[in-house]
């Protein structure tokens, strides 16, 4: 039961960042209405990602790399290639995680992933650009030279886990991200970078149902 709670909150935040990072954002600095208008045009996303974990006890960040696929309204494949091969599949059929370990590529046996149905609902909202409807985070658009989207937790419980999420947009390249940072406090934060982003290309449905 307790496992489902941390998993739910953490993954909600995780996917929030992931989706915010991937969507093209030419209108984001202007208004939420434009965000929703732009988001409505997205049917699929396919991108590489690099995740850099910064901690006070690490001299250099712990880097993970992989690939991300999204099919509107709520199908996701989040696949790590390194340092640990792991594939999270989310679709209306359910949620499964496969990890390469001592017994080969095996499905997560904890059974806790089914609680992530709530994540699917969040993804459905965000894929339509409805970020202000989020029950866990308040969202602020900041314009000017350094354009940012800042997500801050609404509840104390969430604030203990995630103190802030900052999405920085390029000032000279509309729609391009400079960085996305999740701050956990105590000198810990995670940076996500997406490259080779392909939008609205057809994706095979099996990507969201089969690990290989």
């Amino acid at each position, binding site marked *: 039961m307790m496992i489902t709670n941390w998993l739910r909150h*953490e993954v909600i935040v*995780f996917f929030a960042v992931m989706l915010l990072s991937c969507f093209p954002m030419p209108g984001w600095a202007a208004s939420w209405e434009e965000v929703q208008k732009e988001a409505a045009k997205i049917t699929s996303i396919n991108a590489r990602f690099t995740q850099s*974990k910064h901690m006070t006890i690490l*001299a250099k960040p712990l880097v*993970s790399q992989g690939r991300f696929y999204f099919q509107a309204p709520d199908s996701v494949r989040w696949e790590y290639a390194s340092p*640990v091969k792991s594939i999270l599949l989310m679709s209306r059929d359910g949620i499964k*995680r496969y*990890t390469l370990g001592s017994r080969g590529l*095996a499905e997560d046996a904890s059974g806790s992933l089914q609680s992530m149905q709530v994540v699917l609902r969040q993804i459905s909202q965000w894929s339509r650009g409805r970020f202000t409807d989020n029950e866990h985070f308040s969202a602020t658009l900041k314009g000017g030279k350094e354009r940012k989207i800042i997500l801050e937790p609404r509840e104390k419980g969430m604030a203990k886990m995630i103190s802030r999420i900052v999405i920085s947009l390029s000032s000279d390249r509309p729609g391009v991200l400079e960085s996305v940072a999740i701050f956990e406090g105590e000198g810990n934060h995670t940076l996500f970078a997406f490259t080779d982003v392909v939008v609205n290309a057809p994706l095979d449905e099996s990507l969201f149902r089969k690990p290989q």
Partner: protein
Amino acid sequence: MMTRPMIPAGAALMLLTVFFASCGTLPVIRPLDAAGTQAAEERCRLPFLEAPHRLVHAIEAGSPERAMGTVLGVTLFDPLSGIVRSAILTLEGFVLFDARYDGGVEVHRAFPPFDDPHFGENMMDDIRLIFLAPQGRLLRAGTLDNGAIVCRYEDPRGRTIDVMVRPDGAWEIATYGRQIERLRRVEALSVKNRIPEVVALTGFFTVNYRLHMTLISAEPVSPGDIRY
């Protein structure tokens, strides 16, 4: 007048069977001559690095029969001071647990399922068992039937700790309670430059669990990196 026993005989027999099944005998150590014993004692220090290090592992956790999930573990330890700093992260980078040991456990951050008050102590016990040389007195050193060098220690809590180093450099640590019940077994495989690429820890007795740790990175650090 006859009185009924508090525990039926069958149940009592079963309890005794379970009790004795969980206990056992310690592996037989073949003695060596004085020079051989000294060499064995030196070889038993191989698993334990002398300088502070930072290690990052992928940790597959579960029961001995099946894995439940994988997390990332960051561990810093200073063999001289015995200070340990450790964090557990999800693959997505979220820090679930962060604690430091310096004679006692100081938890900096803990989220379910790692927020049990005893979790930090047990985790630090396991980390110290794997990476730091045993505290306590050396009872004897020698060889096992399989040719491994073995050193047997008794720690301040009365537990027996066997450190075994095989001819290929792989090593194993086994701990036993006062009734010679098995407590932990640590097996290190593919050892390169004294650092194993895989460490498997199995916990017995009250709770059976297994951690399969695959090395991601290892680097020396300064004692100051572990100070806070």
